[in-house]
């Protein structure tokens, strides 16, 4: 496979084969983000598709000010949050990954049981708390950025994070 920079340049020139290789390189990272933000396996597949369709439209606007993966990550967060705003779904979800082996395939450590429990607990969080927790604790965004991305006040982001951590600790202690 060609180096990442070369793939991006070729994709920007309209090379669909290079774009497919970009998909292969980044699909796991994007899917993980979508899965955790939506808490639903089917939604995560749809959003992952949306992200790469959007990427095909927008890849020419990537100008290399940040790493491509960072830029794509931000694009993916926006796609997922915009989709949630558009559909207005608010019901609480549980993880419904059709292939339950998806999570197990990515682990090999002795802590895998805890990680799987944690993934399920995250998926079961209320939408608002889950989004803030995933963006802050897993993805490393700042509250100010989350506030802008999600469309909430910075104080609300902090409160949702506190709530998410408390709920997770309670769930994992049961």
């Amino acid at each position, binding site marked *: 496979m060609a180096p990442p*920079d070369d793939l991006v340049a070729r994709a920007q020139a309209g090379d*669909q084969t290079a*774009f*497919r290789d970009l*998909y*292969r390189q980044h*699909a*796991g*990272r994007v*899917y*993980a983000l979508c*899965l955790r933000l939506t808490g639903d*396996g089917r939604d*995560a*597949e749809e959003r*992952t*598709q949306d992200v*790469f*369709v959007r990427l*095909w*439209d927008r890849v020419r*606007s990537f*100008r*290399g*000010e*940040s*790493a491509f993966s*960072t830029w794509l990550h931000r694009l993916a967060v926006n796609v997922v949050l915009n989709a949630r705003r558009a559909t207005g779904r608010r019901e609480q979800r549980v993880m419904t*990954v*059709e*292939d339950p*082996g*998806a*999570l197990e*395939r*990515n*682990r090999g*450590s002795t*802590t895998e049981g*805890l*990680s799987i429990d*944690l*993934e399920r607990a995250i998926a079961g969080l209320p939408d608002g708390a889950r989004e803030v927790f995933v963006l*802050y*604790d*897993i993805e*490393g*965004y*700042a509250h*100010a*950025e989350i506030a*802008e991305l999600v469309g909430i006040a910075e104080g609300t982001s902090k409160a949702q994070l506190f709530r998410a*951590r408390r709920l*997770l*600790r309670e769930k*994992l*202690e049961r």
Partner: protein
Amino acid sequence: MNEKELHDAVGRLPKSIEPPRDLWPDIEARINRRSLALRRRWYWIPLAAAAVLAGVWLVRSQPASWDLTTLAGRPLVNTTPLAASGRLRVGDWLQTDDSSRALIAVGRIGQVEVRPETRVQLVSATESDHRLALARGTIDAKVDAVPRLFFVETPAGTAIDLGCAYTLHTDSLGNGLLHVTGGEVEFQTGQRWARVPLGALTQTRAAVGPGVPYVEDAPEPLIRALVAFDFANGGARATRTALAVARPHDALSLWHLLQRVDPALRGLVYDRLAALVPPPPGVTRAGAIALASRDLEGYWTKIHRILFRRMVLKGVRDIDPRTGTTVR
């Protein structure tokens, strides 16, 4: 489970999870359908172009301006006191005294708070070029847009927004300070440039440009050495002082210094940088010393990521400044 155990468990979660099935065929089909639809839309191009031209004519018939709000006192727009709100037109000067403040809406992409004792002019207000000139004083800018849409010109160079929040100060001599509180800003003149990410500052000098940026908690001797290097012909002596006092947290400064020192000193700077923050895979000493963009960008990505994590997780987790990983 306590808070620390939860953090540790979160830290072990995988960054990547493969989708349960190959999504590429569906993505490819959607891309191809969109391409076809776009080609069909070409029939409408003449009509669309006419509509756009009419729109452009209408917009251009209105003078470009931004909304302006008084926050305190009575700021002046040119020589007229501003009421509660008003408009700042291209070419207008906004001036605050020691007790007045104002808020400028930067088109639809952000806002600038103008602090007391500040003089600022609206230079351009188009969709692709939102531009102010800061003659003196202090502004707090916050912009939510794609990079390179918002610019602030100062006597020391131009601050170029890369999606960020920052405070920019310029004194009456044109010297100043840029402090980035979100995202990243590029500051440049014809000869010099600096990348200033969240949690970093750079001093600026009229007709010279930006100094080497440093992090908020940089040690005072390092800042003095950098100022001597950038603005007082400190040369090799200042470089050696900076290298001696730099910590892993100061990799941002050494990364810039590497590109500014005489070629003979680049090896020295690189070796110190590599000792403080090991280079990521793919970055070579030879490439970095030759200032190859691939090596410099690779190093930058790592340094930027570590700094970002340190800033975002400040007070939540201890971050190893050499690697960016959580300290256990």
